[in-house]
């Protein structure tokens, strides 16, 4: 019991500490691929520190919701990220909140972010919220379908169990899993405002979705929202890592050495996934907004196909 609590706390601290670094790494790789020097790896930490020390400037007609939302968004994202096994399975909270809950917690964060975008009553906030909810209306079911595929495959919706099952001898290669992986990758790109769906680096009204919603934020509120965004990226990459490349993850109750290996393996997996993500990003161009639903619709269909194949191909356990 105490063991599981310790893993859980370590996990929560780890994701929090690592998330800005992951942003730093992706930015660095991207810059290098574009033949730029790029900012230092720890630049996101410096940015966050700078922002939280600054005075927050908010619009005159902003309500309490506008001020409270960043903290709740951050909290739900953090809780969700802490539920994804990174270096070890057997997390305390994993038995209380399964993969569907993780998806729904991200949904709560998005719901509040979209409301915060509408709070001040500007056209940019509205455009961001409206498009974000349109993307979510396809991305969330796509994610759930991928979750269904994984759950049916492993006979559990709990992420620790799924991860342990994938490490075990019974897991084989399956077409459904491949479909779920593709769906999950598309959702990762869509949900984290990466190119080709959204471009976090611009402030052009035609391209921005996520940035438009948080346009009115500054100071500590902005810092907290940025931290939540990087936590979300870490969450998705950890999720793909723990399910599809589970090797190295320490099983619950393994010795200290296994944990050390788990940590090392996790770092390598994250770096590799970040590299692949950025490779993809630099190789594609931004889509028009109304092409995005087709892109996400593909994910939904693939996820559904994966689920149907598992439904008809085997008796569930």
């Amino acid at each position, binding site marked *: 019991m105490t063991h599981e609590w310790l893993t859980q706390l370590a996990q929560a601290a780890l994701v929090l500490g690592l998330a800005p670094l992951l942003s730093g790494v992706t930015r660095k790789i991207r810059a290098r691929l574009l033949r730029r020097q790029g900012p230092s790896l720890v630049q996101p930490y410096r940015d966050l520190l700078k922002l939280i020390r600054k005075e927050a400037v908010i*619009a005159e007609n902003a309500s309490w919701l506008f001020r409270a939302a960043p*903290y709740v968004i951050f909290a739900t994202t953090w*809780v969700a990220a802490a539920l994804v096994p990174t270096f070890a399975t057997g997390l305390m909270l994993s038995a209380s909140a399964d993969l569907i809950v993780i998806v729904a917690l991200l*949904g709560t964060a998005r719901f509040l972010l*979209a409301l915060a975008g*509408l709070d001040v009553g500007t056209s940019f906030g509205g455009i961001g919220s409206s498009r974000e909810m349109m993307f*979510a209306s396809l991305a969330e079911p796509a994610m759930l379908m991928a979750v269904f595929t994984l759950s049916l495959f492993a006979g559990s919706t709990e992420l620790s169990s799924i991860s342990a099952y994938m490490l075990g001898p019974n897991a084989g290669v399956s077409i459904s899993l491949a479909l779920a992986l593709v769906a999950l990758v598309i959702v990762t790109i869509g949900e984290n405002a990466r190119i080709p769906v959204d471009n976090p680096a611009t402030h052009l009204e035609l391209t921005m979705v996520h940035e438009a919603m948080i346009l009115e934020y500054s100071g500590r509120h902005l810092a907290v929202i940025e931290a939540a965004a990087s936590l979300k990226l870490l969450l998705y990459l950890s999720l793909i890592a723990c399910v599809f490349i589970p090797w190295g993850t320490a099983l619950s109750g393994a010795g200290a050495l296994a944990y050390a290996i788990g940590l090392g393996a996790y770092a390598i997996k994250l770096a590799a996934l970040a590299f692949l993500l950025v490779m993809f990003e630099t190789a594609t161009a931004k889509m028009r907004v109304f092409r995005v639903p087709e892109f996400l619709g593909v994910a939904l269909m693939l996820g559904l196909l994966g689920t149907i194949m598992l439904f008809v191909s*085997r008796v569930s356990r």
Partner: protein
Amino acid sequence: MSLASPSCLSQLAATGVGLLLVLAALGILAARRTLGSRLIYAACMLICSGLAVIALAALLAPDSRSEAIELAVGLPLGRTFLGFDPLSAAFAVIINLASAIVSGYAIGYGAHAREPQRVVPFYPAFIAGMNLVLLAQDAFSFLVGWEFMSLASWALVVSEDTSEDNRRAAIVYLIMATGGALTLLLAFGLLAGPEGGYAFAQIRRAAASGAGPVVLILALVGAGSKAGLVPLHAWLPLAHPAAPSHVSALMSGVMTKVAVYGFVRIIFDLAGPPSWWWSVPVLVVAGVTALLGVLYALMEHDLKRLLAYHTVENIGIIFIGLGLALAFEANGLGVAAALALSAAIFHVFNHSLFKSLLFLGAGAVLNATGERDMEHLGGLIHRMPITAVAFLAGCIAISALPPFNGFVSEWLTFQAILVSPQLPQWIPRLLVPAIGATLACSAALAAACFVKAFGMTFLGRPRSDAAKAASETDRWSQSAMLALAGLCLLAGILPGFVIDGLAPVTRMLVGARLAPQSTQPWLRIIPIDPARSAYNGALVFVMILIAAAVTAFVVRRLASNALRRSPAWDCGFPDPSPATQYTAGSFAQPIRHVFGSVVFRAREHVVMAKPGEISTARLHVELHDTIWETLYLPIIRVVDVMADRLNRLQFLTIRRYLTIVFAALILLLIIVGTWR
């Protein structure tokens, strides 16, 4: 006879219904004064609370299959049987709990009614009718209660008949209600068989008469039209918003649940053992209902109509659970059936809480601003803070987001979907994943819908003078809304108790129950197997609270706490006119673009001014209610033509009438002759 014995509880409940009817009569006199109507609503609140407690006692009584009490004052063809069994007791708890809180709201809100004498007498009668449906243990009193409920609610719908829309709503509602009751009458007729035993106990004994499929269709049409299953939902978004808001809350949050009860009673209890294919029509209709309901809601700018359309979606979710339960039960998968049925009835409970809450909030907004159109609202979070908090809780709950209650029932439904590969038949196996995708889609769209509803109504800048001048609603209304919001949260973080409360129902209907949940350590719920899935709403809630509190504390204490207010940034070009904000229409535009071009045949065209001409460009949006146009309009046209033709019969000469009578006589004689 001890006080807790089932038949004593049934007697008490029947007395409660009688008291409500007395209140209805008193209401005619009392409605003349504000104090009088307040007293009537207060009495309703007390009686409903009492009925809820009685029903809860009946539900939790150890020997919960009750004896019905027999009344000698029965209908001509038999005696009246009234009483609770676990099914009706569970629904009675749900219905009376919501009715009690809504009545509390009405103590404050009802005082604003323009013509209280048209509302107050029918309100208790409406609640009495719903309770009678639940208490009925024979088909006659069931149908009497059903009609009572329909007519009383119809009277409430026409209570504000000044607008053309409301009058149209009333006529459509009356027609649909009559049709629905007729199909239920036929369903009971088939169930009772040739012997004609109309008591539920007799019907159960005579079950499996082979009329099952017909009864299924009749029940789907009869109960489904009252609940709002697509395509029989047409009356619902017209009639629910037409009534005063507290009645809308009852109609949408509570009466649709009575309809679900009717379906469950007929199909799960009376119609005998189901075949697996019964689940197919139910699941298909439910999936279509869930998806279309939320899409309709997204296109709607009228706050109350949006909520009414969204009821259609939730009914779809409930029927998905019921359809799964049918499939599992037919295959003898007891625990899975209990899971699906618990999910459905849990959602019934949840929806009764948050839909009532949202309608009450819409009523408070309507009362404060005189507006239902979201395009004229905005910024109310500043002027109606309590209403805003309660409405926000309702929005989060109905969007199925943790830690509120809507998520739990949806999670349970997903778990039921995930055990359905156990089904041996191919058709449901192929169908269920698609239903799962539909459910996931409709949940995500619901979130978009309620971002729109809350965002346009309460956030942003006021879009009209009425919204600028709004003030907070009265204390009674506030407390009622906060109570419902609190219950939404409570049911979300302590779902184990609700699931345990439903165990007698699942045992009665599908012969199995889920493992006891409220005794689980840490308030977890584990529907089937701990290795498979578990959810702990309380822990998730506490973790979010701790994480948010720690973050806020650390950031504000250790870093900066300074805050400055300034004009909005808006990329450097803030515009003072509130018309530059996003509107409800523009918010839904991307979704209309993605989904609407097929479902609503949505078309947009822009009319630009000619070069050199000074006039505004206009965007025209064309939306079609496809179901109304393809299904209802042809029927209406046929009825019109027929009425036109028959109309000529009124202006014949006496000779022609005699000829027609004679011809009819001959015709009948020929028929009778050939029949033998």
